[in-house]
């Protein structure tokens, strides 16, 4: 679900400096395209999350919101969510706004499924027999719950981050977001099982530097 590493992106663009390309990827390797949307040295944000109580076992996501508009970057490839065994797999995923999801009924028996979302966008994607799928682009950031109206234990959750500038917090509380264009951002948290008030704090990203922050999650 993440972008190609910056090094691969650079190779594709034929660049030789420590820069990342923000904009559409070229269709082929070779000479640099005549217009690049934005070339900039990047920075990174890393740090540690401290918890007012035991760190929850369920995923915690750190993400950045860019002040003045989100990053113009290639979207990750489509995420496939399978339904075999009347379970969404994966049952939780982080997407990037503008990323496509393929809901695929891969049951090997004659079992239909329905998919609908509640939350930031509420939509019914229809009924699928085995072998059928539907594609949808999640354009707006936010949390979405996935359900099947047929099977009562079939549920999942998606978090759509504003851009690819996100990272899951490790069990030891550390996180790192790399290859971010310089600028002013707001660092925010998302908890799949919300145990603390979510944090929001400003962070500045400078070219070639690593900004280190401490995020406190408290009740």
């Amino acid at each position: 679900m993440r972008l190609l590493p910056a090094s691969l992106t650079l190779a594709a663009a034929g660049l030789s400096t420590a820069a990342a390309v923000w904009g559409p990827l070229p269709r082929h390797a070779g000479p640099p395209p005549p217009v690049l949307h934005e070339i900039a040295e990047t920075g990174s944000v890393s740090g540690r999350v401290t918890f007012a109580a035991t760190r929850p076992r369920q995923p915690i996501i750190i993400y950045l919101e860019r002040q003045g508009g989100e990053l113009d970057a290639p979207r990750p490839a489509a995420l496939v969510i399978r339904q075999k065994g009347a379970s969404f797999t994966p049952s939780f995923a982080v997407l990037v706004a503008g990323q496509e999801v393929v809901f695929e009924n891969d049951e090997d028996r004659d079992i239909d499924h329905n998919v609908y979302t509640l939350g930031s966008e509420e939509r019914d994607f229809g009924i699928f027999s085995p072998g059928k799928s539907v594609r949808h682009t999640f354009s707006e950031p936010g949390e979405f719950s996935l359900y099947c109206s047929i099977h009562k234990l079939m549920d999942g959750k998606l978090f759509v981050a504003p851009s690819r500038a996100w990272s899951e917090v490790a069990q030891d509380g550390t996180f790192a977001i790399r290859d971010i264009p310089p600028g002013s951002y707001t660092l925010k948290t998302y908890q799949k099982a919300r145990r603390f008030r979510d944090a929001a704090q400003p962070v500045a990203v400078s070219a070639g530097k690593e900004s280190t922050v401490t995020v406190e999650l408290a009740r």
Partner: protein
Amino acid sequence: MKRLGLMLSLIAAGCGGPDLAPPAADSAQIVVALSASARDGVARPRSGGMDNYGGGSEAKGRQFSRVNYDDLADIVVYLEGDGLGDAGPAPRSLRLEISEDGADHRQLLLAPSGLTSLTIANRASGPRSVFAMGNQDGFDVTLAPGEESRVTLKVPGTYELACDEDAGLAVTIIVAPTTWAQIGEAGDDVAFDRVPPGPVEIVVVAPRLPRWSRRVTAAAGRRESVTAEVGVNSMTRAK
């Protein structure tokens, strides 16, 4: 997925029933019929409320249990509007028991301003950390086996109750914006008596399903009856 078992005892006072006396001259009645239905185009299961799966032996897995729309429970119905006051029938105490014998998605209804006290009891064999956090309110308790704790939530909203020891716990807590709130089941007529006259928003929230709402005007001496469609059939459908 294993799910924590939940047993819910509800001690509610003043729930209205469908056999209502005529409305009083100075107040209104509101009756909400809960009409639940499966999605259009979904065939009924072949047998036993489950899809058969697993080969020639027709083995069945719990994960294939189907939603029975004739038997939906924990449907929250509440009224929203200025001047309703706090004389509504929302429960003043609730008890939630957490065990290990499996359960479906449950939904709890609490009155606002901490008027409902929720007792959470750990009936599981190990400790359980149970928490719910909203934007302005929440609780977080860790219970040893056999232990229980009483919590309140003051701020209206929807809270997802979670358990650190089991990601499968599926309980939603709704703190209604007014005390004019009740829990019903599919097929019920949920009745509110002695509703102060004025504009009222009726909101219905069933577990895992989109909310339904309707604005009515409660008029003194009159009964307002509406049917709430519970299900996914009114959702926007993807092209």
